[in-house]
């Protein structure tokens, strides 16, 4: 997902188990990028009812560890959480935190694969630069498929240390922002190991609308 200057949306997360059972969550999300590269996000659960009001405040620092706070309305508690690994699941879905963020390009060595540049398609392989990065991101190799016109990502394939593909992400829909950049508005992650899949769909997208800095505060989190 490419984050823009500021962003607001409602996020529908649907997790489908191997046996076909479906769980859904609805989350409101607001984010803002700052000139120093810091990115702040406020997430609030709208559904299911038992977690309504649960919120998360995340600050992604470019140069230091991320900061994450969570508010639990039923316990009336706000707790800081240890920075998660990028490779860890996002909200218990098949997406990782990495999939939801904008990682540093310098963390990967990238190259074109055979067939890249043909049929209106770039095929790019990205390999984490060292074993620590493999652990952090949770994969040892990624192959991404982009359209040549517009550089829009279509699909990503993730491989484990043994070279086996364990996850795919298909981009199902994109929306263009006011600045001409695209944002993924719907994507599906399929876990090839456990048969689960998750779909994230963004609605009520609002890009580059002014977002107050005060929104990214503990007071706002607890409201």
């Amino acid at each position, binding site marked *: 997902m490419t984050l823009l200057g500021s962003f607001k949306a409602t996020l529908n997360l649907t997790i489908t188990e191997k046996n076909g059972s479906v769980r859904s969550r609805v989350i409101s999300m607001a984010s803002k990028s700052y000139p120093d590269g810091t990115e702040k996000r406020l997430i609030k659960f709208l559904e299911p009812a038992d977690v309504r009001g649960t919120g998360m405040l995340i600050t992604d620092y470019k140069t230091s560890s991320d900061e994450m706070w969570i508010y639990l309305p039923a316990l009336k508690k706000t*707790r800081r959480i*240890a920075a998660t690994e990028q490779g860890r699941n996002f909200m218990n879905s098949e997406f990782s935190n990495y999939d939801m963020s904008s990682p540093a390009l310098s963390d990967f060595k990238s190259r074109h694969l055979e067939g890249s540049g043909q049929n209106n398609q770039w095929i790019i392989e990205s390999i984490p630069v060292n074993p620590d990065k493999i652990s952090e991101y949770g994969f040892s190799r990624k192959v991404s498929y982009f359209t040549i016109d517009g550089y829009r990502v279509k699909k990503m394939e993730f491989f484990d240390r043994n070279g086996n593909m364990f996850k795919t992400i298909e981009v199902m829909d994109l929306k263009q922002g006011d600045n001409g950049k695209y944002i993924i508005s719907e994507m599906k992650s399929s876990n090839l190991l456990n048969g689960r899949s998750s779909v994230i769909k963004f609605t009520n997208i609002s890009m580059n609308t002014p977002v107050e800095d005060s929104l990214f505060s503990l007071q706002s989190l607890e409201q």
Partner: protein
Amino acid sequence: MSRLIIKYRWLIISMCFTGGLFFILLIPSARTDPDMRNYIPGNMPSVMSTDSIEEVFGFQDMMLVLYSDSSGLTSEGLEILRKTEAGLKELNGISSVISPFNIRTIKSEDGMMAAERLVEEIPANDAETDDLKKKILENSYAASAVFSPDLKTSVITLTLSEKTTENKILEGIDSVIAASGNEHKFSIGGLPAVRRYIMKDVRKDAFIIVPAALFIMLMVLRISLGSWKNVLTPFTVVALATGISIGLIPLLGWKISIISLLIPVILIAVANNYGIYLASLYDRINRKNNGSAQSTIAELLKLLKTPILYSGLTTIAGLLGLVIHSIIPARQVGILASTGVAIALLLSLFMVPAMLSVSNSRDNATKITKTAGIFPESFWVRISDIITTHPGKILIATGAIILIFMAGILRIRTDTNQEHFFPENHPLRKASEIINTNFGGSQTISVMITGDIKDPQVMKGIDRLTTRIEAEKGAGKVFSISAAVREMTKAVYTREEDGYNSIPDSREAIAQLFELYYMSGDSEDFKQLLNPENDKANILIRLSVPEHEVIERIKGIIKESAKDIPARVTTGGYAVIMSDFTGSLVKGQVFSLVFALVAVFLLLSLVFRSFKGGLTGSVPLAASIIILFGFMGFTGIAIDPATALLSSVMIGVGVDFTIQYIWRLRIELAEENNIKSATRAALTSIGQSIMTNALTVMAGFSALIFSGFTSIRFFGYLVVISIASCLAGALLTIPALILKFNPSFVRVKDYNQKTDIYENKVSDSATFSADGKSIGPAA
């Protein structure tokens, strides 16, 4: 019949050998089934419950890879363990891995909650090692699942998936351990390991014990029967009957189980009897007939055909009692062993006379008669004297012995812990000891709760059950989602706050705690405890003492506690299956025994045309069963899948000895109508053969002490006691009983079976004076 046997003897022999060989050649294709779960019918409630739990939470069986280092926790040791863990993770067929490197602790530090790995990094120096030790000791909840309290042993717990065969996974684990270069520091435990050792040791047993038993038998027979010809005849019957029965296993699409080992055992005990009677008598008759094969065979069959036939049929009926057994391999043993006895019966009545006639030799016969028999005639004369003089005392002594052993039955216990199949110094027993002492055990009970798990009443119910079981002796470690929720509250509240280490009162609070955990931890951490829909939870109870009594006690607690949980409670797991298995074992054994005793009684009543005869003939069998189980009670030898089937061996042996004795007594009584002298005559003649039989079988069973399985070794000791008691019953109790009560069924006026051979019996065996007292053995 004898004419046809002589005429077609070569055809009979070649057909028997060809048929036998065909089945023997099938034996290598038989597959082994070490999984005791397959022994139990699939419709048994605990099997169905376990299946439903495994459908949601995956296989409940766990495999443990132990790494022991007397130096305790070191960087080198952790490095070896990490490499091994990485290797194990790469194997196909492993569905989950719990190790020091991925187990998480939930903690609150500087106002920040973290679900972090117990061992994040391998310490680089002594100071870091000390810090890590401190961290491990402070986080006992997580640490106790992966480190022993002295930190000298660490464990990687694996659950296996169905994708790959268990054997392949185990081979993979072996190769990972071998690649570590420190194989000697590793050991494996858990039921998959047990199954593998069973599979290995069953084959080893089959290749060592059966040949050893046959060899010992061969030697004893050679000593008692005096010639290789006489030895080889019954021996061939045993070998062919056993070969055909075992060969039927792959032909019927069945698998060899640990219980299948009993088939050769039963057949060795029973199948050679008929051949021994025939072979030992053949030479005597042959000498009298001056080597005329046809008349010898005719007389031999006339004399022995009926008791052998009745004895065989009664044994078959008794063994078929196992067909109603609740345990599948026991049913198979019933069918295969009775088929084997039927084959032995046919071989004895057709092939044995044919073989004997082929090797007919007058010189040899004379020589044999002089050397046959382990005990001298004077021994039998002395025994006869005691019995005929003191029948009352013998009966009182028998009654007293039975009463004493009856008391032992009350102390009998059952044991279905498969680990106990192996001797104490076996690597598996050693590994199990470490696992049970330090890691809460490897055998599990699973309790599935179906309902709204986030409902505080349900969660509190789970918590109460967890706490109650944790306090129970024999329950090693209990894993439940309520314990995880308690840990989460520790990270959210301070010790002084009310919510610390407790189950929240609202559904929302529980749901939000889970969300909190997912932000820092991983939902996979709970996959064995809570399903993704949160409508099923699993309480996993590891047993440090996986004994029947402990399992039953815990089952009782679960049943009682379930009343307070507003959800459906399903109890399963391998340990519960084993517990039910024990119940079935005892119940099945009782049913089979009752069936067998009734069948034996009815058949004996039919044979002797008298209910009194049926009752008298059943006495040694019933008494031997009481003595056997009483002995087990006194010595602490438990009923297990092998020992439970002992009584089946006795049915064959006990019935055979009794029929042979009573039959012979009737012949003797028809001859001279004096019960005392008839008793002496019967004992000195058939007593010798029965004794030879019993000693041969007992010697053969002594081979079982070489078994790799403890229960099979016990089986060996017990079978010796059983046969000895059957022998005493047939040669002491039955004669005393008949002498004392002089029942009419032993008297037959016109006895067709009487042959000339018995007119010479005095010169063949012993000489008696007119008052019935022995005056010395024959010259």
